């Protein structure tokens, strides 16, 4: 009786009236704009703002738009090159930083990893633009891939580091007794155990690369337009449901990957 009483009192204390409603509003604020955006992609009118009826015509139009397809392919080429590169670099760095104990370049190296997160995107974009321009390097998509690899590293790094930290080092020690040599320990124990973390890192890097806009806008030259940059030029041209349609598909794709990541990560935790 006593405890129950206490519990009610307790609940009473840490729940504030109105906070629940506020949180609902909060989620509404986050999601209603996205919802509206998606709704209007099914608008049959030429003008995004005026609803005239339900239609798939803008989606159909997307599939006949060569420029969108080229931009989409570019986006995927960039993400499929930059995300694995960033993941590989992040994996080796995480192994050295988490398993390497204390050493001289430790602080410096972790600083390097977080650097792309600290520097404002517009600064990175402008700096990379000047860098490539003054060196006269223009390799089309490869410029974009290099720039993406850089800012994808910290995103790939986080889940890998977390996975490594959660791993029981005793397993590896035990394996060392079994296999004696380091390489096979790494192959048979560390790597398989780390794979979910690496995959998570890859997925985050992939999403970040696919979504990037500002840096790509500044760095990309001819024939290297990615989907977000193309969408930007469409938005500038005026608000048409075609923009909504391509945006909805992009949103759906990102959400799909992130959801995948989430389930993946939950599995790791369990």
């Amino acid at each position: 009786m006593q405890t129950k009483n206490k519990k009610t009192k307790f609940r009473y204390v840490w729940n504030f009236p109105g906070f629940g409603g506020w949180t609902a509003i909060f989620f509404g604020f986050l999601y209603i704009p996205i919802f509206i955006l998606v709704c209007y992609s099914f608008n049959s009118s030429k003008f995004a703002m005026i609803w005239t009826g339900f239609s798939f015509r803008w989606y159909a139009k997307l599939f006949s738009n060569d420029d969108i397809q080229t931009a989409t392919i570019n986006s995927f080429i960039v993400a499929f090159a930059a995300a694995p590169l960033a993941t590989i670099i992040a994996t080796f760095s995480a192994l050295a930083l988490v398993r390497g104990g204390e050493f001289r370049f430790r602080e410096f190296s972790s600083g390097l990893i977080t650097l792309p997160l600290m520097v404002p995107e517009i600064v990175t974009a402008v700096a990379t633009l000047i860098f490539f321009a003054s060196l006269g390097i223009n390799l089309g998509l490869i410029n974009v891939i290099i720039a993406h690899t850089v800012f994808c590293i910290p995103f790939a790094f986080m889940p890998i580091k977390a996975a490594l930290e959660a791993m029981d080092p005793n397993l590896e020690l035990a394996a060392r007794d079994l296999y004696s040599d380091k390489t096979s320990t790494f192959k048979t124990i560390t790597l398989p155990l780390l794979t979910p973390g690496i995959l998570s890192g890859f997925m985050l890097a992939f999403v970040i690369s696919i979504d990037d806009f500002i840096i790509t806008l500044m760095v990309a030259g001819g024939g290297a337009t990615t989907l977000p940059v193309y969408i930007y030029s469409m938005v500038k041209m005026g608000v048409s449901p075609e923009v909504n349609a391509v945006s909805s598909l992009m949103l759906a794709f990102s959400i799909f990957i992130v959801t995948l990541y989430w389930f993946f990560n939950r599995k790791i935790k369990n």
Partner: protein
Amino acid sequence: MKGKLLKILVSISFLFFSTSVFAAGKLNLYNWADYTPEDLIEKFEKETGISVTVDTYDSNETLLAKLQAGGGSTGYDLAVPSQHFVEIMIKEGLIEKVDGIKDMPNYKYVADQFQGPSFDPNQDYSTPWQMGSASWAYRADSYSGNGSSMMEFFKPSDEVCGKVAVFKSPEEVVNMAHLALGSSFCSEDPNEMQAVMDLLIEQKKCVAVYSSEGINERLMSGEVIMHAHWDGYSQVGKWEGVDDLTYAYPKEGVVGWFDSLVMPKGAKNVEEAKAFMNFVMHPENMAMLSNFAAYANAIPESAKYLSDDMKNATNIQVPDGIPVKFGQACNKESQALIDKVWTKLMQ
């Protein structure tokens, strides 16, 4: 695991490989937004087997900045600057000399007065695209003025204040201001430029947005009533349903321009670019351009392929007595003044 990784690597390298292999039949065109007819590109692709990618920009300045930032290789094979920017780009070494423009089969169709134009006297760099003018347009149903003076745009009445839009970049706006004030283009006189600046700053109070893209959409939605505009593009807006969109031909004149195809430095698909230059000069193809963008062109024979819509286009007919003054390549001193005015305005 290893196998999978290998597969991924192989497929990635294949992607690179494939893009470079097919690069032979590719063309990257960098053009103004809403200025490239899809049917023309499709026709070119069908005739030549070359696949064309179009990227867009919103002003000569943006194009110039992009070419400068390319560091000698922008990835673009063709771009479409206006006459004075062709001059600047030649001076700055930003575009390639194109061999044998005069020997191109379709060059003969270019009207005599446009062969060897002042900005490219030997026709070493450019072939004609379209030409037109810059001024402003208004929705006649919501505006009581008649567009007879430049000042209607720069000193908007209360009726339209807050519903005016201006180009995002200075080159044409500053020239329009010069027309309004009666000063000359590329002025190096600080007093005259001060007057231009004062006019623009005064106008800014009534300006809703500075943008050179999506102009017709903005007028259509009623977001703005008055917009800096180009003659042909405003005609396109009319065709697309803004029936009462009227292009102003103020008594002070309009700013003329002549856009040309040029090849940015380091263009990789030179032959494809040349093929496109030649292709565009054919009367039938040039007419497709004009039918789409509603501008005049330098190929007289294209007239017989023009659509009826185009023949009856009211916004592109320059009334008698209205001067068309072409923008010039300003020297560095006056260009610096223009940039200063614009930077002051934009802050």
